[in-house]
């Protein structure tokens, strides 16, 4: 994993996963997402890109507006990394 590289969630490729490293501009909606499992050190997977996009965390699929996903910065995992839960 490249520890320097941080990309917004919506710039991952479909089916690519990443580890959340930073979440900017906290507000009610981001906190809601955090309560659903999207917080620092969690592995999340971008299932489908677009606006809104679909991500997966803790085995749950969540539809999220791109402008919210923009604020979730992740360390992208290697393409061969397999997200199993």
């Amino acid at each position, binding site marked *: 994993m490249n520890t320097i590289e941080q990309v917004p969630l919506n710039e991952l490729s479909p089916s690519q996963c990443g580890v959340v490293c930073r979440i900017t501009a906290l507000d009610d909606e981001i906190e809601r997402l955090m*309560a659903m499992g999207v917080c620092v050190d969690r592995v999340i997977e971008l299932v489908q890109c*677009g606006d*809104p996009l679909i991500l997966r965390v*803790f085995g*749950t*699929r969540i539809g999220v*507006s791109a402008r919210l996903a923009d604020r979730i910065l992740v360390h992208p995992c290697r393409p061969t990394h397999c997200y*199993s839960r």
Partner: protein
Amino acid sequence: MPCYDVDIDTLRSPGRNSSAATGTFSVVMMGNPNVGKTSLFNALTGLNGRTANFPGTTVERKFGRLKTGARPVEIVDLPGIYSLQAATPEERVASAAILGKAPGLSRPDLVLVVADATNIERSLFLVSQILEHDLPVVIVLNMIDIAAARGITVDVAALEHEIGCPVIPTVARYGRGLDAVTTRLVEWSQSPAETMLALPPRNGGCTACGGCPFQSRYTWSENVAARCVQAPATAWGQKTEMIDRVLTHPVAGIGVFALVMLTVFYLIFSVANVPMDLIDTLFAHVGAWIATWIPAGKLQSLVVDGIIGGVGGMLVFLPQICILFLFLALLEDSGYLARAAFVMDRLMRKVGLPGTAFVPLLSAHACAIPAIMATRVIRDPRDRLVTILIAPLMTCSARIPVYAMLTALLFPHSPAKAALVFTAAYILGIVAAITMAFVLKRTLLPGDSKPLVLELPEYRVPCLKTALRYTWDRGAVFIRQAGTIILAISITLWALATFPETAPPAATTDLRVQAAAAEDRGDVETAEALRREAVNVSSRHALANSYAGRLGKFIEPVVEPLGFDWQIGIGIVSSLAAREVIVSTLAVVYGVGEDSLEHDQAGLYATLRQARRSDGSPVFTMATSLSLLVFYVLAMQCLPTQAVTKRETNSWKWAAFQFAYMTGLAYGASLITYRVVSKLMML
């Protein structure tokens, strides 16, 4: 690190805040959305569950009594939440409820947390927050069958030990494990002093450890799950993913959604007609039967036309409401509704509304009343309010007879033009709604739509029992809370059209005399026609002199610029009860009689076409007809809608605003239409 020590001093004995072993034992049910709380609640409380808003809010709760047990155990089911953080109205109410500060709810004696066995970490997040409050907690681990099917095994004893409260595995949908839950609740209600060590969560909720509090709770959850749950490494949910590839596709998804909605829509329109006709017929029979017991007169009219007619007129909304909610419940339970909101989101946001607003707005084309009730799927209260306010602008089925009458008056010999005008009326409603949404979001209720955060649950076969129960609840809420107001409105409008009584005019007596003479001559047909005419003249006179009639005359100066006369004014006043009433009112007011509606519609339209003002000019010119059409597209001509708006927004203020802005919009558009078309006709 200090937060990971177990502090003996913080061992609490539950029940400190319980009421004594008499009185109601109150249990509050909490959990994430989609974990099966509703199934559990229904199973525990049976048919005695009721739904109501928390006073002063639009957040709903369900409450009911446990079916067994010596001491009454009241269960309150709160809406699903992800956290007690108070970012949404539901979360605010839930965290207030736990503190005993929710309106109308005292501090609970026990919290029943429903957790998802297939997603324990997420459920444990909420559990960790709840455990921080000084209350006994029982965890129901639901959907244990689905977990088993996925190869997930849960060591319940270890989980109980880790968290420090009872954990009961269940499959609420099929009733498994419920006896254990009931027994536990009854036991606890009878001996609140029973102690159960409730260890604090490992993180203690402290933020001094650094990082976000969410993070530390999730770390705790993951650690507990790692110790108590065995899950296979292989990914599951592949079936869902395959289906989603189509259903959440930006283009195909919308296509499928359109198909689904058309089907539901068609069912609401067609299937609902059967019970609606049955209700109409039933109440007509009941009315006729009652009429044999009460002598003819005002009392009979009050009971038959006012009360029975009013009740029937209110219950006739039920079939459409029930069908809509049944399908919404099935679609939601199957997991599809979330996908529908997901695909519609992009389109709806261009209008400033969320994807979830689409279903209510579409069903408003059948009837705005169930549509307004269905806006509860919209999360943001501001978006929900805007949707409620614009829903009645969509052309509902009650406007169709009015459109039919006016387009027939406009283009009696050209069905193509009539159809065009009909369609234009529909489009006008939609355009007006979109424009008003735009305007409202920029003026009165400003603010961008909240970004979408929507869980897409796994697909599953919907449970018909739960859906039927939900439909029953919605129907009961409608009857109890909106229906009573609708009934009051119907009776008031009946009174306005009936009082004050006036003696029939001389013309009626003359006609009756002529009818008797004709009968003597053996000319039965003429006698019948003359008697019918007598009734028409009498009704027309009575209506014109009633309060409704006087109101019509009173507003004549106001509606004259729109091209209406006082008779149309009476029609508008009377159709405040229900839009289609204007057709029958105009039949009476122009002396054609209500019977003609059923037997001789062409006759009604022909008569209306020939109606003349006092100066001899025709009433229903093109300008007047178009102006009236535009008025009916946009006006709030259905006071029962106000009753439902009030119930769903919890205030008469918004209901009044809805009435006011729609009336203003209708007046302005109607005025412009009349002036423009009149000028064009003069060219």
